[in-house]
């Protein structure tokens, strides 16, 4: 066998239950000293495949070779012993432990050292690759990026030569991502093999040497990154030609729907998160909200939905599209606001955290929106079931059945259920925050399409996004928040990425006339 091959997977098949086949006859190789990107849509079996390398799952059939020897990885410990370490999307760290204790966890008695020696080892690894970890810091005091760094250090400390990173950049800022990529390159130069699971195509092109693609659990092929383009990778991933231009339909019937004036909100620590924001939203328009995360986007949307208390002096006026009646939203309850047709679909980092109940099926989750309707004391299950079927059909939700608990669905599918339900309520104002967070390219386009459909119907769509390219392609107007203040509203058709980026980071001085 080729000496350059670190790990070889042959004819791997893994099924969950009888219905869901996560991986089907997958064969692929990982070379020494390379960065391999594993690419695929949501639910294409990338994470499952890697979990078999790291010992979380065990394949139903197929073989794994490490350094040319056939191995049987039945537990994470086996994987460690073979030098394979995985950094999971949900960090495997104990919150109440210090960094050192987390590294010490589960180590062999033969390797038993006291915490001081381990702390020293951590510092050495940090110096070698350019990490920054405080060995004494408790995990619950760390930022997401620090936790991730600790995960990598932990894996290296235990002698891993093959590192698997599952969507490592999903929760990082662009600066943190750059830092991560820099250390990954250091590690590659040191002869480590790195597998990075992601669906951000520009990152694949930036960091990897080769790209392997999975589609619906099957292995499609591997290409050299230098020969690949965004278009070619997308086609391999999706299996058909995909139009990569986001459409921006023109609408005629724009009418004022929301008027926000002088709105200020405090966050949960009593710090001003939103400072004197005045803004309008129109029906038949997509209003984009841009800003570095934590600039007040959450507070703005929640204030409109009635979930966030506003400071005195602000007002949010809603104009009913049918009667033209003006109503003040501040002071109204969440239920009252919902009844008027203002819908919020907020996708937090933890997708199940808001709006869906993980252990309930699609039907029951649809019912959460409608249980108050009807006159009998018995809940109407028929309409929600039909809605669930419709959402499943139209948004191509991959699930064994509409009664399957949604937490068993892959992340993207969970998101489709959430957005699908909010749109089905036929809102007059639809707020979507991070609606495509963590979604693959094909699903993202389905969501953009849905938002455009709503816009054509005359709904006022407010879209909070992270990807500037998407904001500029999708939105009619973009309001840029900076540090809780509205730093400008630009036209999505004429603005440039640089212009928006500048507004996001540099607060304009208020004109002296104010």
């Amino acid at each position, binding site marked *: 066998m080729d000496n350059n091959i670190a790990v070889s997977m042959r004819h791997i098949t893994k099924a969950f239950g009888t219905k869901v086949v996560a991986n089907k006859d997958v064969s692929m190789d990982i070379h020494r000293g390379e960065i391999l990107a594993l690419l695929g849509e949501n639910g294409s079996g990338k994470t499952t495949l890697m979990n078999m390398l790291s010992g979380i799952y065990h394949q139903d059939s197929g073989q794994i070779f490490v350094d040319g020897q056939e191995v049987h990885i039945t*537990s*994470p410990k086996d994987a460690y012993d073979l030098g394979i370490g*995985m950094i999971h999307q949900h960090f*495997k*760290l104990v*919150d109440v432990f210090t960094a050192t204790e987390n590294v010490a*966890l*589960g180590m062999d008695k033969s390797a*038993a050292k006291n915490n001081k020696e381990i702390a020293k080892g951590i510092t050495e690894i940090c110096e070698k690759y350019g990490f920054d970890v405080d060995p004494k810091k408790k995990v619950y005091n760390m930022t997401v990026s620090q936790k991730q760094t600790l995960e990598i250090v932990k894996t290296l400390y235990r002698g891993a030569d093959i590192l698997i990173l599952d969507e490592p950049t999903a929760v990082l800022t662009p600066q943190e991502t750059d830092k991560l990529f820099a250390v990954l390159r250091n590690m590659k130069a040191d002869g480590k093999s790195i597998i990075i699971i992601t669906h951000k195509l520009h990152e694949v092109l930036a960091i990897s040497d080769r790209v392997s693609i999975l589609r619906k659990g099957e292995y499609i092929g591997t290409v050299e990154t230098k020969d690949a383009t965004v278009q070619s990778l997308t086609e391999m991933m999706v299996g058909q030609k995909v139009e990569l231009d986001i459409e921006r339909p023109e609408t005629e019937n724009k009418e004022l729907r929301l008027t926000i004036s002088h709105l200020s909100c405090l966050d949960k620590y009593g710090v001003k998160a939103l400072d004197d924001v005045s803004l309008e939203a129109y029906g038949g328009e997509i209003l984009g909200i841009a800003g570095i995360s934590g600039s007040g986007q959450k507070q703005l949307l929640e204030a409109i939905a009635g979930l966030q208390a506003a400071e005195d002096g602000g007002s949010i006026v809603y104009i009913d599209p049918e009667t033209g009646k003006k109503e003040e939203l501040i002071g109204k309850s969440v239920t009252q606001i919902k009844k008027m047709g203002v819908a919020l679909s907020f996708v937090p980092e933890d997708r199940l955290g808001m709006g869906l109940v993980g252990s309930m099926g699609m039907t029951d989750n649809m019912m959460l929106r409608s249980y108050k309707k009807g006159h009998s004391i018995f809940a109407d299950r028929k309409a929600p079931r039909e809605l669930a079927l419709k959402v499943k059909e139209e948004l191509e939700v991959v699930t064994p059945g509409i009664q399957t608990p949604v937490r068993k669905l892959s992340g993207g599918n969970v998101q489709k259920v959430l957005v699908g339900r909010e749109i089905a309520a036929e809102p007059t104002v639809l707020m979507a925050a991070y609606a495509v967070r963590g979604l693959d390219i094909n699903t993202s386009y389905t969501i953009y399409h849905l938002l455009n459909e709503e816009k054509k119907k005359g709904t006022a769509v407010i879209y909070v996004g992270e990807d500037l390219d998407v904001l500029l392609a999708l939105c009619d107007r973009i309001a840029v928040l900076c540090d809780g203040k509205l730093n400008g509203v630009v036209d999505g058709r004429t603005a440039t990425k640089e212009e928006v980026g500048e507004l996001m980071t540099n607060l304009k001085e208020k004109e002296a006339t104010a």
Partner: protein
Amino acid sequence: MGGFVTLFQQAVAFGTIIMFGAVGEIITEKSGNLNLGVPGIMYLGGISSLLGAFFYENSTDNPIPIVCVLIAAVCAFLASALGGLIFSFLTITLRANQNVTGLTLTIFGSGVANFFGGSLNQLSGGVGQLRVPATSDAFRAQLPGLSNIGGDIGKLFFQYGWLAYVAILVAILAQVYLSRTRTGLNLRAVGENPATADAAGANVTLYKYLATCIGAGISGLGGLYYVMDFTQGKWANDGTIESLGWLAVALVIFTTWRPKNAIWGSYLFGLLYWVYMYIVGISRASQELFKMLPYVVTIVVLIIISLRKKRENQPPEALGLPYFREDR
């Protein structure tokens, strides 16, 4: 002063029972298993020690004290650990609900114990006739040398059966094990975040089984102390063990899952429980109110902890949750 000395002595004797119960339960809960079967396990420990001692004393004319102690202690530990094993098998292997399983175990233990307790009483000729004097005496032996210290100091600290000091030793050992050793670290990780411990290479199932069985064994020693020292080798079917078992569960919360706090916490619970005896002119009904004090204190502690929001004082994060590696 005399009144306080007696109160203190009662508190220590009482506290020793729940200290065993609580320290065992802390070890169990640190593995993420919430075993509400503590009362039942203490019942099992109590009755098994009595059974073992009874048959040994009846089989020989001259029971040897050290053999009495060994038989009673081993019986108590093994029977209680068996209770822990039942709990482990049901909750870890079969993934049954921990709360329901624990409560069932309490009912089971109480039933088994009272059945055999009744039988023993009958064997020995009626209620109150059951005696295991040699064993009970061996357990109530005081520390040699120290017990001669006179005055209130001696009365306060040195006039207890030796199991009372074993309880303190067990609590200290448990504390050192949890906070200082590598396996203790792994055990805590299993209770906090089993997926993480698993990914780090710790055998989650083994840790949970061992912690639950050993923890149950230690809890059962509370039953042993109750039967051999507190009631001096008799079987009383009055439900005291059960209420002591629940106090032990409350004490676990009171200690914020730290065995070292169980040492003073258990004595404090004892003081609070018996203080009504020393309040003059109190009616029978009000006595019962005073017996609530340990629970009231536990609730107050819970409120304080919740206000202080310190992560280290929280229960193990995965407490009460089953773990299955391939779960998604």
